[in-house]
């Protein structure tokens, strides 16, 4: 796999809070990577730096062979970085179809019928076709999360950043979402997925990383990372106390 996204030496701090410290990450084409980590570990900031919402204090973001560190968010989107937001941000005054059409027309640069076709296809794929003409403001949480994914997909991404798309959903809803992400992967789109719903994540990714205090403390196949003592300690305070509590 040739590298699609490469982060090298990213630094970012807000006052005393370090959200990224000499952070390196390489994601190959079509690769599916999951990221876990406690709250405040810098996961959402990481996405913001990749998508261009946030400027790193130091370091470089390279995408598809080009240095995009200084590029604004809309250019990165057009270059092939699609993203979702943890708290869905639909264009509430527009219909679901129009929401997705914005991404298809602006993000992937399609015109006229071609853009509409792409938007319609993505809606069908994401199970939102029946809600196409509804106002996005009236959607349920599951539908909003799907719309986030649909918009990200409609930009025609090479890389899709998913930020806690399963959070707050019920179990069957999470499974539907996992299936959808599987289809996305099958199309050759690389995926980086931040998720707290760990069981959903492990079903979908090839590789899992754990982010804490602005650095990756574990990187490998999901089973290994979830058994990593450092990771367990983060969640359960380490194996020895885990037994001690029994």
């Amino acid at each position, binding site marked *: 796999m040739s590298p699609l996204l490469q982060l090298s030496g990213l630094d970012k701090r807000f006052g005393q809070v370090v959200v990224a410290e000499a952070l390196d990450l390489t994601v190959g084409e079509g690769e599916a990577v999951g990221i876990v980590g406690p709250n405040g570990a810098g996961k959402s900031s990481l996405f913001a730096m990749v998508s261009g919402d946030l400027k790193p204090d130091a370091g470089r973001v390279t995408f598809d062979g080009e240095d995009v560190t200084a590029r604004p968010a809309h250019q990165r989107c057009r270059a092939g970085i699609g993203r979702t*937001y943890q708290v869905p941000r639909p264009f509430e005054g527009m219909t679901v179809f129009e*929401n997705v059409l914005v991404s298809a027309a602006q993000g992937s640069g399609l015109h006229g019928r071609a853009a509409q076709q792409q938007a319609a296809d993505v809606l069908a794929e994401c199970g939102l076709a029946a809600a196409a003409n509804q106002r996005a403001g009236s959607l349920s949480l599951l539908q909003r999360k799907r719309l986030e994914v649909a918009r990200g997909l409609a930009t025609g991404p090479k890389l899709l950043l998913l930020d806690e798309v399963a959070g707050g959903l019920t179990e069957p809803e999470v499974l539907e979402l996992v299936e959808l992400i599987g289809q996305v992967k099958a199309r050759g789109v690389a995926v980086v997925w931040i998720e707290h719903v760990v069981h959903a994540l492990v079903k979908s990714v090839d590789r899992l990383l754990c982010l804490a205090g602005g650095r990756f403390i574990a990187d490998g196949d999901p089973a290994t990372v979830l058994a990593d003592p450092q990771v367990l300690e983060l969640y359960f305070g380490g194996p020895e106390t885990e037994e001690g509590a029994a």
Partner: protein
Amino acid sequence: MARTTPPTTEGTTTPVAASAAPPLPGALVTRAGRASKASAGVLALAVIVLAALPYIAFAGTTSSMVTFFVLLIMASMWNLLAGFGGMVSVGQQAFVGVGAYTVLAFANMGINPFVALPLAALTCSVFAIPTSWLAFRLRGDYFAVGTWVIAEVYRLIIIRFDSLGGPSGMSLPGLNGMDPVLRGALTYWAALALAALTILGCYLLMRGRTGLALTAVRDDETAARANGVDVTWSKRLVYLVSAAGCGAAGGILIIDSLSVQPNAIFSVQWSAYMIFIVIIGGIGYLEGPLLGAIVFYALQQLLAGYGSWYMIILGAIGVAGAIWLPRGLWGTVTNKTGIQLFPVGYRLNQPWTLPPNLR
């Protein structure tokens, strides 16, 4: 599934044509409903009737209608700026004034003021480029007051030109020889044409690719950016367009009154009118300024005899509207009924709303 009908692309399909026949199975989207077909007809009829008004009504009526059209133009421009671009300006009078003075400057050079109108619009968008560079450094409230200061700067610079009449203003040359009735009718038609053009222009802009992007910016700037919308470019475009519109409105004002007074033409009152009309009508809806301008005009006719009470009542209504009716009249109506006079949206057609296996 036969999908052999020609592609439905935005811009080429008028609302009337799109809803003339039921959509064919292959058509992906519909751009307008039955209500808008009717409203397009009513509006076209209204324009025709209004165009004939100088032949039926007194000059006094048509003259007061000029004010109505000017306010309609300004309010539509402010709606574009604040409602879709998120830029609440209290300084659009800068372009009203620059527009009026451009017509004056060209008239001084011997160019017919009516011919100078489009030039005024053009000049204003040129002036808007450096202005936006400065004003865009400000956000929110500070943008509002900052644009106001910029308008003041324009006024203070213009009154330094003695050839433009200095602080006391001057009268507009070039139309003195014309028959007053003809001049009045020409002014009226120019104002009507510009107002119709403004509304049609806004409609076409919002219906197209850029309009979709602007609506996204209105709803959520960050998300728009993340989905590929060049937000800064969109805002600058809107700013330039609205400067041009206000410039043309200013041009009409000087032609209508045959003179210009810097303090009046650069008055913040113009912004007050624009804001009032848009807030009452409904900010962020193309229909808002039209409805707001009608309400405003009616109030003006009703309260004209009461001097400053008229402005006091307007101000109070504006305050109440901003707090208790944030979507304005049209926003409230359309939210309840779903009616749209100027549909810019897209409806995905039946077969496409079904999952792929059922289409």
